[in-house]
C-alpha cells in the first residue's frame, strides 16, 4: 500500500544551532496507528510540527496523501487534524464556537449535526455554551481533540495526548481513536507511556536525539526482542555456579540464593527441561520458579541507552 505520509531525509537545525532532526526518513501507512516513542527533546514534536506546516524544514521533503506540504499545502493540510501537546485555546470563547471556527478554518461549510456528534462523543455537548476558561484541564484537552476532528481529517496527530490526563479521559480517548481507526483514519501519536503504545499501536517508531532508531510492527518487535528470564530461587544459597551447569547461560545473585536463566522464547529449544534436570543432578533444591518477559519498555530503554 502507498504510504499516506512520506518523510524523506528531513533535517532541522534551529536558529539556536540545535540540530533537532538528523536526516529522518519515515513512511506512515494509511489506516495504521503509529506510536512515536522517545525521550524528551528527541525530536518527536519537531517532526510532527514540520508535517503540519508549523515549522519549516532545513532540508528534506514531506508529502501527505501524495501532496507536497509546501507546494500543495492546501490539499496536504486538509487531510490533517492536529492535537497539540500544549493546551492552547481562546479562553473566552465558547466550546461550540471554537469547534465551528476550526471547521471553517479548514474550509468546510457549517455542519451542525456533525459538530454535535463529535461533541457528544467527547462528552462535551453539555458544555457547548461554556467559555473555555471555565473548563477543567481534561475538558480542555477534549476540546482540542474536537477541534482537530471538526473537519473530518484523514490523518490525526496526537502529540502527547495523555500527558496529565485522568483514567476516564484516557479511556474515552482510546475509544475515539478506536472508532477513527475503524473508519479508516490514520493515527500518529507521540507518547512517553510505553504501555499506551503497547496497547493500541500497530507500529512503533523510536526516536532519540533527532534520529529514528527503528520503526517496526509492534508484535514483531516484541517477539523479535522478546527475551524471557527464568528466576530460580534456591533452598540454600551457593557460593558459585556448579561446573556441571557451566554450559547454561546462568548468573548467580550476590547473596547466592537465586539463579537467573536467560532464554529466547523463539528458539527451538529453550533448554529449560535440561536445566531443571541438571539442577537436581547437581544437588540443588529449588524453592520457587518465576519467569518474566521483556516489555516494550525494556526494549525501548535498551535502544535509547546505546
Amino acid at each position, binding site marked *: 500500500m502507498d504510504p499516506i505520509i512520506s518523510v524523506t531525509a528531513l533535517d532541522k537545525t534551529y536558529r539556536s544551532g540545535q540540530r533537532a532532526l538528523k536526516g529522518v526518513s519515515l513512511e506512515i501507512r494509511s489506516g495504521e496507528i503509529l506510536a512515536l516513542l522517545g525521550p524528551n527533546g528527541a525530536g518527536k514534536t519537531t517532526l510532527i510540527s514540520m508535517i503540519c*506546516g508549523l515549522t519549516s524544514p532545513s532540508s528534506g521533503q514531506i508529502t501527505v496523501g501524495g501532496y507536497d506540504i509546501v507546494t500543495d499545502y*492546501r490539499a496536504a*493540510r486538509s487531510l490533517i487534524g492536529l492535537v497539540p501537546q500544549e493546551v492552547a485555546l481562546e479562553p473566552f*470563547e465558547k466550546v461550540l464556537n471554537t469547534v465551528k*471556527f476550526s471547521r471553517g478554518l*479548514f474550509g468546510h461549510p457549517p455542519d451542525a449535526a456533525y459538530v454535535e456528534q463529535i461533541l457528544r462523543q467527547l462528552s462535551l455537548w453539555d458544555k457547548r455554551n461554556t467559555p473555555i476558561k471555565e473548563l477543567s484541564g481534561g475538558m480542555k484537552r477534549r476540546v482540542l481533540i474536537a477541534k482537530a476532528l471538526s473537519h473530518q481529517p484523514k490523518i490525526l496527530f496526537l502529540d502527547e495526548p495523555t500527558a496529565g490526563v485522568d483514567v476516564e479521559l484516557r479511556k474515552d480517548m482510546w475509544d475515539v481513536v478506536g472508532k477513527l481507526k475503524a473508519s479508516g483514519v490514520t493515527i500518529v501519536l507521540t507518547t512517553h507511556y510505553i504501555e499506551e503504545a503497547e496497547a493500541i499501536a500497530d507500529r512503533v517508531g523510536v526516536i532519540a536525539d533527532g534520529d529514528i532508531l527503528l520503526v517496526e510492527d509492534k508484535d514483531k518487535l516484541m517477539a523479535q526482542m522478546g527475551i524471557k528470564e527464568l528466576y530460580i530461587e534456591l533452598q540454600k544459597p551457593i557460593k558459585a555456579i556448579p561446573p556441571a551447569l557451566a554450559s547454561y547461560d546462568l548468573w548467580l545473585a550476590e547473596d547466592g540464593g537465586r539463579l537467573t536463566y536467560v532464554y529466547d522464547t523463539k528458539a527451538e529449544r529453550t533448554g529449560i527441561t535440561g536445566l531443571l534436570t541438571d539442577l537436581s543432578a547437581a544437588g540443588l533444591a529449588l524453592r520457587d520458579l518465576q519467569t518474566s518477559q521483556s516489555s516494550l519498555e525494556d526494549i525501548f530503554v535498551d535502544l535509547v541507552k546505546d
Partner: protein
Amino acid sequence: MNIHAIKAIYFFEMARTFRTLLQSIISPVISTALYFIVFGSAIGSRMVAIEGVSYGAFIVPGLIMLTVLMQSVTNASFGIYFPKFIGTIYEPLSAPVSYFEIVVGYVGAAATKSFVIGLIILATSFLFVPVQIAHPFWMLGFLLLTCLSFSLLGFIIGIWARNFEQLNLVPSLIITPLVFLGGSFYSISMLPPFWQTATLFNPIVYLVSGFRWSFFDTADVAVSYSLAAIFVFSVLCVSVISWIFKTGYRLKN
C-alpha cells in the same frame, strides 16, 4: 480561495469585539465625546474660526482620525498577538489557509471595528458641534482606507511584538505623538515656517488633511497627495506582511 476560513477568522474576531463591547466600542466613544465637550463646546466657543470653520467643528475630523488610527493599530495588533501569546496561532498556521486569507480575516475584522467606531464618533459629534460634510463619499473612502492601512500596520506590530510592552510601545510612543503633531487640533498653516516644513514628513498630516477636506473642502496639502500617501503607506505595509509570511518571521521556527 478558502472563503470559509476567511469567514471563520473574521467572525471569530468580531465575536471578540461584541464580547468586550464596553472596552472596545463604548470606551473610545466616551473619551472622544469628552474631547468634543472640552475642546469643541467649552474652549472652542472662545476660539476664532479657522479657515471659516468654527473651532469646535474644525477638530472633528482630527479627533475621529485620532481614535480611528489608535483603534486600528491596537485592534489589529492585539488580534494577531493574542493567538501568538496563548498559542492558538498553531491552528491558522496548520490549516489549508493562504497568508492572504489570514490577513483578510484578521485585518478585515480590525478595520471593520475601527470603521464602525469612527462612524459612531462622527454621529456623536453632531450632538456637540455643528458639522457639515462637503464630500460624504470621499469622507467614507478616506475613513475606510485609513482603517485598512493602519490595521495592516497593527498586524505587523502584533507579529513583531514579543510581549505586551512592545505591543503598546508603537501606539503610545509613535502613533499618539504623530497624530497630535499632525494637525488634528490646528491647521499646519498656524505653525512657524520651519515646523510647517518639518510637519510634511509626518504621514498623519496627509491623512488628517485629506479627511478634513472631505468635511470642509479646505486642506493643508493637496487631496491627491493625501490619497498618494495612504496608497504608498498601504503598499509598504502589504510588502512587509508578505515578507513576514514568506520568511515565517516570528511565526515559525
